[in-house]
């Protein structure tokens, strides 16, 4: 029996931050019924990478990864009968999750105060960019924007240039962790007390926990951190150096004096250890530019993989910077079941990411690929809600099931 096999989730999440939360629950056995209308499909279906580079709603590796293991119920809320289906699912569910802008659930009368009337011990998670209250609660958009307003962009880049920003919708990589933890803790509390509750998650507020030292440095010292390139206040050398080949790089970080001595030894530059420009950490920090040139000259004449092996062989933290191919072929990740091949009813054999952590006794089980819109209508309506053929027929006729 999987750990969360007794947990039932009604999932209105879309895009990334929300679905990432419920994916983690589905991996460990929660039954997740995902509501999506064919009249307005989840935008994540329109974002790549796509299988064989063919944009298709069921071919997105992004959507496929974030929604594996969930059931798909196609429902158009504007149609007669649809609301009753939702309310029946609320009665069935332990947890309702949604990630619309704050006014949407209220407009549909599906907000917590409306739903707790029919399900007093309901746990409901609302996740949006800035939270349900405050002057910017109506600010909607994507994780790129939440990452910009919460400081991530300005902390990623080079001191002499405009900010580079991290790749993609960064807060969407942070928020799912806090969202899943919040739901699990609320379930634990409910089990002991019988009480449900409402959880208001501002993705930006969760994400700020990943910038703690910089925020405290500003609050306590008045220092305004900015992107430092690859410099680190605690270590030198610390950088990403060119290797042979197109866009090939080696990351090297000397965290200890021993790492530094070993690096010099591997480069056959033991003279640097006693060179007064580099002897102590503060010297190396002061002369970073010169040091980086010396290391770059050494890495530049070999492949990234060869440099990694030489340095790791000497115990120096170093790695070839991997592209998609490198990650897909990485033996370490493969040994943990990072990628999973799965058959999808619409797009055939495809690949998704597995659970990112391993439970020794009750490991994750990804039971099904991400749903096609409405792909599990029959199962959800008949087996979960116990509707008969007649009732399902009425919903179909009303156009509610799309």
């Amino acid at each position: 029996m999987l750990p969360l096999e007794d947990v039932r989730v009604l999932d209105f999440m879309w895009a990334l931050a929300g679905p990432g939360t419920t994916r983690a629950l589905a991996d460990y056995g929660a039954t997740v019924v995902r509501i999506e209308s064919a009249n307005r499909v989840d935008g994540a279906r329109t974002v790549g990478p796509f299988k064989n580079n063919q944009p298709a709603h069921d071919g997105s590796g992004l959507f496929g990864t974030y929604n594996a293991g969930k059931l798909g119920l196609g429902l158009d809320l504007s149609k007669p009968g649809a609301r009753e289906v939702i309310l029946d699912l609320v009665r069935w569910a332990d947890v309702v999750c949604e990630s619309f802008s704050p006014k949407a659930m209220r407009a549909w009368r599906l907000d917590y105060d409306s739903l707790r009337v029919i399900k007093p011990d309901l746990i409901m998670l609302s996740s949006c960019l800035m939270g349900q209250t405050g002057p910017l609660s109506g600010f909607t958009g994507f994780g790129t924007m939440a990452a910009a307003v919460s400081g991530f962009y300005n902390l990623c880049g080079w001191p002499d240039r405009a900010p580079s920003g991290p790749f993609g919708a960064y807060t969407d990589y942070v928020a799912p962790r806090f969202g899943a933890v919040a739901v699990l803790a609320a379930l634990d509390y409910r089990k002991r007390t019988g009480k449900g509750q409402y959880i208001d998650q501002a993705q930006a507020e969760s994400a700020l926990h990943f910038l703690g030292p910089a925020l405290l440095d500003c609050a306590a010292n008045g220092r305004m951190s900015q992107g430092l390139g690859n410099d680190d206040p605690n270590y030198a050398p610390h950088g990403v150096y060119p290797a042979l080949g197109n866009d090939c790089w080696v990351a090297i970080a000397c965290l200890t004096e021993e790492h530094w001595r070993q690096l010099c030894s591997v480069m056959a530059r033991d003279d640097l250890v006693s060179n007064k420009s580099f002897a102590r950490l503060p010297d190396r920090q002061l002369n970073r530019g010169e040091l980086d040139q010396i290391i770059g000259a050494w890495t530049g004449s070999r492949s990234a993989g060869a440099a990694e092996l030489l340095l790791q062989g000497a115990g120096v933290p170093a790695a070839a910077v991997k592209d998609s191919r490198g990650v897909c072929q990485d033996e370490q990740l493969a040994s943990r079941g990072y990628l999973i091949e799965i058959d999808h009813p619409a797009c055939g054999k495809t690949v998704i990411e597995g659970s990112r952590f391993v439970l020794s006794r009750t490991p994750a089980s990804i039971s099904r690929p991400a749903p096609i819109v409405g792909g599990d209508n029959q199962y959800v309506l008949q087996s979960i809600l116990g509707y008969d053929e007649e009732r399902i027929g009425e919903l179909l006729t009303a156009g509610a099931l799309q």
Partner: protein
Amino acid sequence: MLSPYRVLDLTTERGFLCGQILGDLGADVIKIEPPGGSPARLLAPFFEDQADPNRSLYWWAYNRNKRSITLNLETDQGRELLYRLVAGARFLIESYDPGFLNERRLGYADLAAHNRELIHVSITPFGQAGPKAAYADSDLVILAMGGPLLLYGDEDRAPVRLSVPQAYLHACGDAAIGALVANHECNRSGTGQHVDVSAQQSVTLATQANNLAYRLQADESRRMAGGVKVGAMRVPLVWRAKDGFVTLVFLFGPQLGVFSQRLMNCLYEERRCDIATRDKDWISYGALLASGEEPMQEYERVVGVIAGFLASRTKADLFSLALERGLLIAPVATVGEVLASPQLEARQYWRVLEHPELGRAFPYPGPFARFSETPIIYRRRPPLVGEHNYEVYSRELGLSAEQIRDLAQREIV
């Protein structure tokens, strides 16, 4: 919310955040440090730039809502004390290199013998086993090996990381989920288990599934100054405003195209573009570019028009416009602007913790979520080294003052 549970936090700087998340949720988290304190207390930045074990802002950021005791795990007596603590705990979190605790008879099997319910969470660079499990690691190295690093930065320079280390924070988030999933199961079965977290695998989430491109035979995204390249398309995300930078998503398709149409309506009203430009098919625009029906130069021209408009307005102006007209524009905030955010102030986000030993108080990042029934409370500022030794060893484990003095003399606590 998790107040019935005790968490023993043996983590090094790799794993601090996991225990803090559980502490924020109300668990009783005891940070166990080696005598003299965790070496991570000497990580910069420091309050007033004075290197001191009780002034590390790195430590402060990830250790609130914990108590601290010191314990020497290299001694038999130290280990015995840990076994006694384990007997009363639900979780133990650690981030030593694989094998380190086994060699000291403190592995999962050793500890579970003292408490069947124990959930032992290991946060390591690459996981407990596998061909590279013993690789030397750092934040940068993990980001390089998990996929995100190559995607961040400018195309004419080396890839660049976020200047606040991130890799282990992702791992800690996953560790907290794993811990609570195992806890849910333990409440049913009465048996704990081992949770194995690999930071390398955790950071794969930060590639937005770009890691899959090779296996799917799809275009891989590439880094670009202030944006991203996908296939032949250059997608700018960071744009220059009059007084700094903003982010703007200018993309197409049934959902994003609607926002681009609104943006073009604004540009037309501002006399920045003609009607023909405004009325391009922004929903299908991506497909038109892909097929070549719309030349890439025309897209680049429109991007130039948008850039000209944004550069003439302040960040605040543009943000107001975005809110009023429903545009995908947000200011690129500095750390100072984040601290002064009216939104965060209105939500009373910052939580002030007193540091009586310094005679000062500081605003900490606030609750990661708002719980209606069990709000997150900031009960304790990050602890001083061994601040709760007496409380835990005497009052909770029942050692006499003499026994504690003896342990201290032998450098066990």
